[in-house]
């Protein structure tokens, strides 16, 4: 099942183009890291995927799924105690009161914030607020979890706990996160999107411990590559692209490229 599909999507905010002609397809269960420099449009792309932002141009397909969203900076002026806040947001998306309290207590214990449940959020440290932000997203039972720089403000123990929590989520949960941290990409991501000035400049799938084939091809237009699943690619300049694909899928990808009018320049095999 596709969780998000975008075709030549642009997003303009206050007259400034933040996202340029993004064509992307995200399947259920993918763990995607969005990387790029500050101000490159990572957070905007994340919000666009989750429907928090709507596209200015282009077509988007976004099936109705539960979304959990963790902002980069948890709101500073929330006027509730941690438990009251989590209970209220939990109830917005679920009607089962008892279940919510138990889940809050479980997550609070996992993230070591039980002692802060009765503390006003305003008085909590940045790290505790960030943990509360992650818990509120998990309370929504998300099919799609969006995390904007989730490790910001977390101590090492909390970082590891968050990673193990995210890894323990069911395989069919889709997780998309923006990050600068190699740790998160290494431990969690199976696909990495690199964004520069609002454009996706690289879309690579991490094929772990598997032999891969590197295909260098000449392409009639860049959009073609975005339509091909299970690959990571890098534009080499002009009309050339380097595609990395697992050995299993390479024949099918080669045939897809040829059918779309691409010329194969080079083919090599390499261990990951």
């Amino acid at each position, binding site marked *: 099942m596709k969780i998000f599909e975008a075709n030549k999507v642009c997003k303009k905010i206050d007259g400034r183009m933040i996202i340029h002609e993004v064509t992307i397809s995200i399947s259920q269960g993918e763990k995607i890291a969005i990387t790029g420099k500050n101000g490159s449009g990572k957070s905007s792309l994340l919000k666009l995927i989750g429907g928090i932002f709507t596209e200015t141009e282009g077509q988007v397909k976004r099936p109705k799924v539960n979304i959990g969203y963790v902002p980069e900076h948890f709101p500073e002026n929330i*006027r509730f105690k941690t438990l009251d806040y989590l209970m209220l947001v939990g109830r917005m998306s679920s009607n089962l009161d008892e279940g919510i309290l138990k889940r809050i207590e479980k997550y609070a214990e996992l993230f070591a914030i039980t002692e802060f449940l009765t503390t006003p959020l305003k008085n909590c440290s940045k790290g505790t607020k960030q943990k509360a932000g992650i818990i509120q997203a998990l309370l929504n039972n998300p099919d799609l979890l969006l995390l904007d720089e989730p490790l910001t403000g977390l101590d090492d123990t909390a970082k590891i706990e968050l990673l193990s929590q995210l890894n323990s989520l069911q395989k069919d949960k889709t997780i998309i996160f923006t990050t600068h941290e190699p740790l998160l990409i290494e431990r969690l991501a199976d696909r990495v999107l690199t964004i520069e000035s609002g454009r996706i400049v690289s879309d690579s799938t991490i094929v772990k411990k598997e032999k891969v084939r590197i295909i260098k091809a000449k392409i009639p237009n860049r959009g073609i590559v975005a339509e091909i699943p299970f690959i990571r690619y890098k534009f080499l300049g002009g009309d050339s692209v380097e595609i990395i694909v697992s050995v299993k899928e390479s024949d099918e990808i080669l045939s897809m490229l040829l059918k779309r009018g691409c010329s194969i320049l080079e083919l090599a095999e390499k261990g990951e």
Partner: protein
Amino acid sequence: MSAFIRYQLISFVQSLKFIPPVVIFCAWVFILYAYKNVPILSSYAVSSLVMYLIMTWITMSIFTLDEESEKHILFTHLSRKVSYLFGKWLTILVIMIPLLLFAVFFPILIESFQGNMSVKLYIYTFYSHLVFSAFGILVGTLFSATKLATKKYAWLSAVFIIVVSLSSKAIIEMMAFSKWILWIFPPVFKVTEYMEDKSQLLLNKPIIFDSVFVVVYLLIGVVMLVPLFLNKEG
């Protein structure tokens, strides 16, 4: 939705932003009924106008309560952005109810009126207070939940709309052509002109036509605000 409304109410109360409008409203009503034997309809017309002002203020405070990232979190929990708008409106209605009841029943309880209330007067009194509150909610929403909210003079513009709508009758008398522009402003005089008579209310065709006009105006206002809100939050 009830959890969202509770969230908003607690947040509003704890922000203390309710104090200035509520205190001013109560003070205004106390002063209005400081004298005994006041006429029923014109007194209620004044308290309705005060509701207009105060509800604009409260609406703008409610819509500016959440930080940007807090709002984005709430969107995901509510599933639809439009539920956020409806939830805010329901919260404002919950805040409006005690103010409206206070404005209507306070003078009756302290026996300020000359004459007695009738069913017809009760109906029109509730209608006028509700309509003026709705005008306030529309104006407040327009300048705090649409792209106009990002403009520097949002609060000033809201006050301008209120002042122009309240003085529209005088403006039209001075400049007849202005009626072609002023119809877009909340039609306050289509409600208050029937409250000028001290304690008599005649149910006739004009009052019914004007009431239908006012209700249609409010419905169109609500329908137009939804895409304007979604456009801002896009």
